[in-house]
């Protein structure tokens, strides 16, 4: 019976799909672990730098271009961080929707509003809606490394220093846990030091017992040190966002693939049921035909 064969084919095709989604889930789980390690490893470095900056800034009353708060920025650069590949559930579409809404809400407010895209999905989405980015950076997920982040950071810093922009924002998926990502908008430049005070409880400055002493020796001068540190801090912020985004991507993909695998299983189950019912029905029909034929002959 042709119908039976159809169902059999569909079952085997769904089984193949399920195998693929299951494999993708495994791969994402492994990559997620690595990405999570990255985040954990950079945390001490980031926290130290931030606390030192906050310490110097609070004691030395420093004026620094990167620290100056801008009341009403006019020229804004927004970095949109997405992934290169899809099949990650709502990961990219959440970001894109958020960024689009932000763009539409604010484009009248600013004189100049530019976008820089990291990741193919975001740049494709905006290109399709004829919003052009100043640049696109691809191939992030393959290897998130500090030098790469530093390259991006250096570029942003240059453009900021040239006076092309008053503020640089970043929209990315913050990694909360393996199953939850939150779309976040953060200010990258100018650097917001007040955040250091609010950082988590493991933070050296959180409970006020800073190790900073007033007769600290500086080599070179505090101004030069803070200049250097701010640059590093900025680079590490970019690196952190990238690492979080990659972790979030793998987390999202893992969850999406888990669901897909489950749905495929459900489909296989219901199709197998239909298949068996049909098979039984056809056997029953055949039996009835045979027995009634035999009865007819007897009569």
């Amino acid at each position, binding site marked *: 019976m042709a119908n039976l064969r159809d169902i059999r084919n569909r079952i085997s095709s769904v089984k193949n799909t399920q195998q693929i989604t299951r494999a993708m889930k495994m791969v994402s789980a492994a990559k997620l672990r690595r990405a999570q390690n990255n985040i954990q*490893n950079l945390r001490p470095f980031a926290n130290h730098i931030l606390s030192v900056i906050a310490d110097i800034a609070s004691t030395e009353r420093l004026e620094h271009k990167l620290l100056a708060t801008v009341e009403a920025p006019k020229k804004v650069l927004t970095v949109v961080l997405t992934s290169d590949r899809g099949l990650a559930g709502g990961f990219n579409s959440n970001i894109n929707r958020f960024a689009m809404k932000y763009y539409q809400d604010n484009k009248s407010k600013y004189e100049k509003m530019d976008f820089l895209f990291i990741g193919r999905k975001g740049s494709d989405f905006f290109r399709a809606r004829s919003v052009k980015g100043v640049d696109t950076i691809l191939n992030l997920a393959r290897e998130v490394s500090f030098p790469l982040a530093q390259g991006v950071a250096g570029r942003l810093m240059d453009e900021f220093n040239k006076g092309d922009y008053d503020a640089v924002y970043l929209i990315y998926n913050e990694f909360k846990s393996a199953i939850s990502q939150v779309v976040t908008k953060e200010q990258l430049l100018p650097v917001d030091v007040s955040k250091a005070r609010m950082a988590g409880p493991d933070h050296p400055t959180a409970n006020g017992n800073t190790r900073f002493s007033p*007769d600290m020796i500086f080599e070179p001068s505090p101004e030069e040190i803070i200049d250097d540190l701010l640059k590093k801090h900025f680079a590490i912020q970019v690196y952190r966002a990238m690492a979080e985004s990659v972790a979030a991507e793998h987390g999202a993909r893992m969850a999406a693939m888990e669901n897909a695998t489950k749905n495929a299983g459900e489909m296989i189950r219901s199709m197998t049921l239909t298949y068996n019912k049909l098979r039984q029905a056809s056997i029953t029909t055949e039996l009835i035909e045979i027995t009634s034929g035999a009865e007819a002959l007897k009569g």
Partner: protein
Amino acid sequence: MFNLNLVTPEKKLVTDLEVDEVIVPGFKGQLDILPGHAPLMTTLGTGVVKYRLKGATSYETFLVSWGYCEVHPDGVIVLAEVAESLAEIDRARAEANLRKAQAALVDPLLESDQMVMMQRKVERNQARINALGNDTSH
């Protein structure tokens, strides 16, 4: 208690190790830090960070490239952009990179930011080779 922490963005190399002495390539030159050193904050150049564990007589060596060092009463924090242990350094590769970077520096058409990059590359590879050289001599 005099502890050393050595951290890079990509890994945590040393955590709360009790040490007797730390030598770092400070902004103004080699700095030898012993317990009781005055609080100090300095940037680090490219070079070798050495430390001696409490009670030990030999030094452990790391190569760092750009960093920052903070000395406070109960320890030293070294934040380095790149840090490698001696075992990770490949002498042949360092020498090849050094020659390549030196050759590139001769090019008169080099842009200034590239120049800085190449100079740092020369420094870094030179430091790598030096670090290895010291290691075999003693």
